[in-house]
């Protein structure tokens, strides 16, 4: 018992360097376990042309090949000749990173305030819809070219922030003034958001020619431009400018939490409600405001998805909001960490496509590998969080 306790103490007391080392070790271990899973699956599976044979047993999948694709293929194989840092696969990885930074930050802000905003997906949906509608409507009066971009892109982002913010403030207000548990309400509001968006688009916003439930295409000037770094192709649906914007948001949220009175209120409320009330924090106001901020970040994420990736709103959005929860937990709800965790997710996403493209491994198995990696990397942080609570029970022991 005390052996485990000592191990837990070491983990809780780990320095930043040690934590990075632990994460790296966890990553390596997850690859090892994943390789074993691929190997065993390869024995069980039947295929026309086995990757290799061991002791007369045919093995369909080559674990080394799978992981090479998952990590290096995700970046377009930098180890091979003719590699360019602006290739298609890197664009996919960075596009996902950009989107997940917003949803990850949204979750992180709410978690730090002690609120479990599971409704980031719904706020993202409304943010995306608002961005599309606003830019399409304003497109009629906006100039074209760079001037139009300067007007339309901020407008789209703002519309997304407002829509997501209001949709986040709603469960915040329900909790503050009605005592409704935000976990329940935000989960329900996710369904409401996607269904309401479906009805709105199919009833009012669908071009007549369209087969899918989607809006018209946003004006060309409303797309987030691929400047100032020329290189990624337009079809990559990725803009370095958007990534820089996401990094600016990381800095902004980190600053807000660490350096402002409002951030102090948020953190105090998240750690100890009673101490927050004692210090004069208006709990109701802070609940509504933090949920609004969280929703606004999700809404901006949705706007970026429209303005950078799709160029229109269409129903059936990817589950960026739910992935944001994992990203935030992986990052220990730390804004800077959200950047790193989002990048890991982006690489894994791009890697999944690469594996699917160049090996016979079924995509479900790749999902298992991704899950393993995330689980392994998240566990040490998870145990640190729990360990802090657990060891903290003794309270005044360290006399």
């Amino acid at each position, binding site marked *: *018992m*005390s*052996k485990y306790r000592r191990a837990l103490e070491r983990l809780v007391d780990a320095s930043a360097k040690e934590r990075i080392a632990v994460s790296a070790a966890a990553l390596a271990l997850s690859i090892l376990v994943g390789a074993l899973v691929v190997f065993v699956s390869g024995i069980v599976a039947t295929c026309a042309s086995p990757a290799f044979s061991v002791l007369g047993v045919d093995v369909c999948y080559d674990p080394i090949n799978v992981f090479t694709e998952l990590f290096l293929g995700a970046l377009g194989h930098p180890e091979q000749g003719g590699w360019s840092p602006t290739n298609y696969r890197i664009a996919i990885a960075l596009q996902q990173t950009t989107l997940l930074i917003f949803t990850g930050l949204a979750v992180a802000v709410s978690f730090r305030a002690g609120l479990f905003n599971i409704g980031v997906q719904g706020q993202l949906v409304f943010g995306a819809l608002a961005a599309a509608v606003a830019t399409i409507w304003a497109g009629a009066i906006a100039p074209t070219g760079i001037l139009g971009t300067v007007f339309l892109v901020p407008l789209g982002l703002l519309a997304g922030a407002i829509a997501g913010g209001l949709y986040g403030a709603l469960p915040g207000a329900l909790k503050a003034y009605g005592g409704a548990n935000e976990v329940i309400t935000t989960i329900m509001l996710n369904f409401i958001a996607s269904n309401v968006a479906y009805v709105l688009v199919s009833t009012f916003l669908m071009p007549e020619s369209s087969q899918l439930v989607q809006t018209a295409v946003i004006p060309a000037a409303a797309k987030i431009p691929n400047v100032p770094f020329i290189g990624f192709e337009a079809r990559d649906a990725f803009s370095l400018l958007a990534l820089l914007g996401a990094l600016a948001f990381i800095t902004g949220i980190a600053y807000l939490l660490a*350096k*402002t*009175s*409002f951030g*102090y*209120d948020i*953190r*105090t409320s998240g*750690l*100890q409600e*009673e*101490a927050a*009330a*004692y*210090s*004069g924090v*208006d709990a109701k106001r802070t609940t509504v405001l933090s949920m609004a901020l969280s929703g606004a970040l999700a809404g901006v994420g949705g706007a970026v998805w429209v303005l950078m990736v799709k160029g229109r709103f269409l129903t059936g959005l990817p589950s960026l909001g739910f992935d944001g929860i994992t990203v935030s937990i992986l990052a220990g709800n730390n804004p800077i960490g959200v950047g790193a965790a989002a990048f890991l997710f982006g690489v894994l996403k791009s890697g999944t496509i690469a594996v699917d493209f160049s090996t016979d491994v079924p995509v479900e198995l790749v999902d298992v590998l991704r899950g393993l990696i995330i689980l392994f990397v998240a566990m040490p942080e998870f145990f640190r969080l729990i360990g*802090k609570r657990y060891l*903290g029970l*003794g*309270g*005044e*022991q*360290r*006399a």
Partner: protein
Amino acid sequence: MSDAITLTDVTKRFPGVVANDAVSLSVESGSVHALLGENGAGKTTLMNVLYGLYEADEGTIAIDGTPREFDSPRDAIDAGIGMIHQHFMLVDTMTVAENVVLGDEPTTWFGLRTDADAAREAVRDLSERYGFDVDPTARVEDISVGEKQRVEILKALYRGADTLVLDEPTAVLTPQEVEDLFAVFEELTAEGKTVLFITHKLGEAMAVADDITVLRDGVNVGTVDAKNTTQEDLAERMVGRDVLFEIEKDAVTAGAVSLAADGLTVTDADDVARVDDVDFELREGEVLGIAGVDGNGQAELVEAITGLREPDAGTVRLHDEDVTTASRRDHIDAGLAYIPEDRHERGLVMDFDLVENGILGAQHGAPYASRGVLDWRTARDHAEDIVDTYDVRPADADADAASFSGGNQQKFIVGRELERDPSVVVATHPTRGVDVGATEFIHDELLDRRASGDAVLLVSSKLDEVRSLSDRLAVMYEGEFVAVVEPENVTEEELGLLMAGESPEGFDE
């Protein structure tokens, strides 16, 4: 007589601190031994080493003369040591008997079924043998704090403990329950058990212990026979200097009314009045004490006054300003300082360091924030000032609040609240869990505020504290002020009766 426990040169280090420095200690079998020391003197660390929660860096432990090594509490329990922690570890929804046998249940059906009857019988036998008045079938959530403590003791006895180690057992008890606990100690030693208890209260150690060991800064500064020592001698050993027990209070002329309540009523969720039509006026340069048994509405009264809760009826006035419905922030801005009774939940954010905790309540506005942006440099200077002035140990403003001992946490809170230069101070149990040296210091600080013309509202269940500090003393019983007296004109017995809701014979307000 042999020794039940012998510690030899036990040293335990934490990063940056030597919590126990070559401590040797012998506890005679069948005796009551008190381990006395200030907060942060290393008492609890030493007991955790003995109980196998910590591994000593150096030194040895012997039980009944046999050297032992404890890797876990399980080893300590097997060696006949039972520990009763300050915070009870009971399952509220289970009965007393279920709690006592938990993890060590008598079973039937070859170990498949818990034998509830046998458990009840075993607990009843134990409790009768030691004269405990505990009903084995009662649910733990329904019994008093004193009874819960006896359940913890029963748990240890049930597991065959010969030596009972109690960490600050009286901290959570009422004076009557303390008496009962000491009676239990006598029963235990009469049955041949050994009792080792941690305390920072001199009076208790002298009243009940046979031997007293004083710990200061992690060092054993001597074991004395309780019969051959004095309070002054013990205090000097503990603190390392002379301690004045008499509080010297200068005469101060009371000024204008700072804080007033009129018809103040607070009801709980069941519509029961917790504070019932209370009136008072508190003037500049005055200390108004509120005495009473915990749970008679003091907490609700303080919450209504400090802006944490809106009263259901009546008004509160702060410097002629009606603040009945004003926010907590408005109260803070109006110069009201509040030293809360619950430092772990309310007074400090345990995961914040002292720099962050130093601005708790002042995070908006000058001097720590301007236009919503915090000035951490000023905040750091502030925290370091408090640590310096109020002797918070260890003097590390970057350490989390959770890592400090209770007394040092309290010193920091008192420092933070008083350094804001308030005009009204509401202090609830300001010296609860605080050692004698720090208590003296906190009392002096409160009287300093009074001398400089501030108004102080003091809520405490320590009779000597409210009596010696207060200019006027209100006794609260079931939500009402049953009497407001001059502390000099009332005896402790009369106060005790008033607190119990009875009117002393021939008592005249």
